[in-house]
């Protein structure tokens, strides 16, 4: 029981990070119907920006943890959003009217560009960060096994809940969210109703990148090491989470992230850690057989 609870805590933490990234995939798919394969690498760039920002803040003497975290969060979100915006502007917008596969191929190209850029600019070795958020609470113990929830785990889950809450308000309560939902349902009609579709799409990428930056920062804090390749592995997991939950559905992405995180953690805990990815992807295959549109997805209606 204690062991189970511990794994639950770990799984929710990991799932939060996946969920934040998955939203970026699902939102972009919802609005322009493409899979932004560079999104995982935008997350990786976000993690690097967060790392550099931490080091820079330490150098200029800002060491108070809450202040440093807040500053790094803002810096990472803003700069990563600029990256996300640029990727859309440079690689996807010129191909908007092109055939369906074209942006998909440039997306893969952008992914490689970002990976190689970071590999060359930052080096291929893993980059460590000394633990910044330490400590935790022992909830209870059973025999020699104690269930611990660490401060960083609390921070990750709390930040995710907060950010997702704000994001939910943005989508459902503001006119930007309204415009996004309108573009998602009928892009042409949205344009004819006076919605600047190009700007709405740009803002979607900016928002997705902002969330990915939050995930990048949390990942960096949780694991303490990053390298240029994390975008691929974590990105594919988050993409799986988005498909799992029903691509195009934002609550689906959150749910899918959580489930993928839990499957991975529980599989590692009870079976073999080597096969955790196999387990996660197999679950995806099984779910897609029984729910072809994912858990919360809507069946695609062909527009005439």
């Amino acid at each position: 029981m204690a062991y189970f609870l511990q794994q639950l805590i770990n799984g929710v933490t990991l799932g939060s990070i996946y969920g934040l990234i998955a939203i970026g995939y699902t939102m972009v798919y919802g609005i322009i119907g493409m899979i932004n394969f560079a999104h995982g690498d935008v997350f990786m760039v976000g993690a690097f920006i967060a790392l550099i920002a931490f080091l820079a803040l330490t150098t200029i003497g800002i060491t108070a943890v809450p202040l440093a975290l807040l500053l790094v969060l803002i810096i990472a979100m803003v700069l990563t959003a600029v990256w996300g915006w640029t990727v859309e502007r440079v690689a996807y917008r010129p191909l908007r009217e092109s055939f369906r596969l074209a942006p998909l191929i440039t997306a893969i190209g952008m992914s490689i560009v970002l990976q190689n850029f970071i590999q060359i600019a930052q080096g291929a070795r893993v980059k460590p960060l000394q633990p910044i958020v330490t400590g935790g609470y022992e909830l209870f113990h059973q025999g020699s096994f104690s269930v611990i929830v660490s401060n960083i785990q609390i921070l990750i889950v709390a930040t995710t809940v907060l950010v997702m809450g704000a994001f939910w308000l943005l989508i459902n309560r503001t006119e930007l969210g309204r415009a996004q939902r309108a573009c998602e349902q009928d892009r042409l009609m949205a344009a004819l109703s006076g919605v600047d579709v190009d700007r709405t799409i740009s803002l979607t990428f900016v928002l997705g990148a902002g969330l990915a930056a939050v995930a990048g920062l949390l990942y960096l804090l949780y694991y303490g090491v990053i390298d240029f390749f994390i975008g691929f592995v974590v990105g594919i997991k988050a993409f799986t989470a988005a498909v799992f939950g029903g691509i195009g559905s934002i609550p689906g992405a959150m749910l899918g992230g959580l489930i993928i995180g839990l499957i991975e953690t529980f599989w590692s805990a009870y079976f073999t850690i080597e096969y955790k990815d196999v387990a996660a992807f197999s679950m995806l295959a099984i779910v897609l057989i029984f729910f072809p549109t994912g858990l919360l997805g809507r069946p695609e209606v062909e527009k005439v």
Partner: protein
Amino acid sequence: MGGANTKSWDRDPILTVEHLSMHFGGITAVDDVSFAVGRKDITALIGPNGAGKTTVFNCITGFYKPTEGMLTLDAKDGPPHFLERLTDYEINADARVARTFQNIRLFPGMTVLENLMVAQHNGLSRASGFSFGAIFGLGRFGLAEKEAIDLARYWLGQVGLLPRADEAAGSLPYGDQRRLEIARAMCTRPRLLCLDEPAAGLNAKESDALNALLQAIRDKEDTAVFLIEHDMSVVMRISDHVIVLDYGKKIADGTPGEVRIDPHVIAAYLGVSDEDGAALEARP
């Protein structure tokens, strides 16, 4: 067909179409068509199937880039807008031309009210400082949002959908969806409202209500109405000005009374025998 400058649409046009042509590969859908749409008129564009009516609409609303021609929207309160140079978004946002579709295009998953709020996106977006204001709950956005809701409720009242404001647009019956589409177009505060077969699929009672609505828009709002219509009884009853297309060419242009007795129009709608056709060709 009457002397120049005596018709309302020549005296005060909101839209002037000059030498509009649209080719698709080797096919000429619209062939050198010129006409004017009056600022205070209901103008109808009619013609048999495949005459190019919807293509003309698509050129005006930026869905197609015309092969040739000039489309000038006279804004009265500012410089004219050259529609052939604008994107579909700018045609709505800047030139303020709104349209509806033959096959209804609402945002089906959003509520009736939200559909009308999307149409007011521009003003709201500016007032909210592009959403940042809204997130931080700044007052100006609240006010703009309230005004937008007021306008949306006004148009819902006009089209009789106020009780259904919070239902999903896709779940409304067909006739209601048609009226909602018009309400959404009106919420963009258009100078020119283009309606593609607004009466299609409506029963007689709904059709009468639509006529009354269009006349109210012409008389009370600062909006010119331009519609494609198949239903001749609708056209003849409410239009001030009728333009007839056939095979991509304009064959008649005038008041309903004039068009009704025009031999070209009769020929296009009813067909002619070969002798009559030759006689028609021989006319000056």
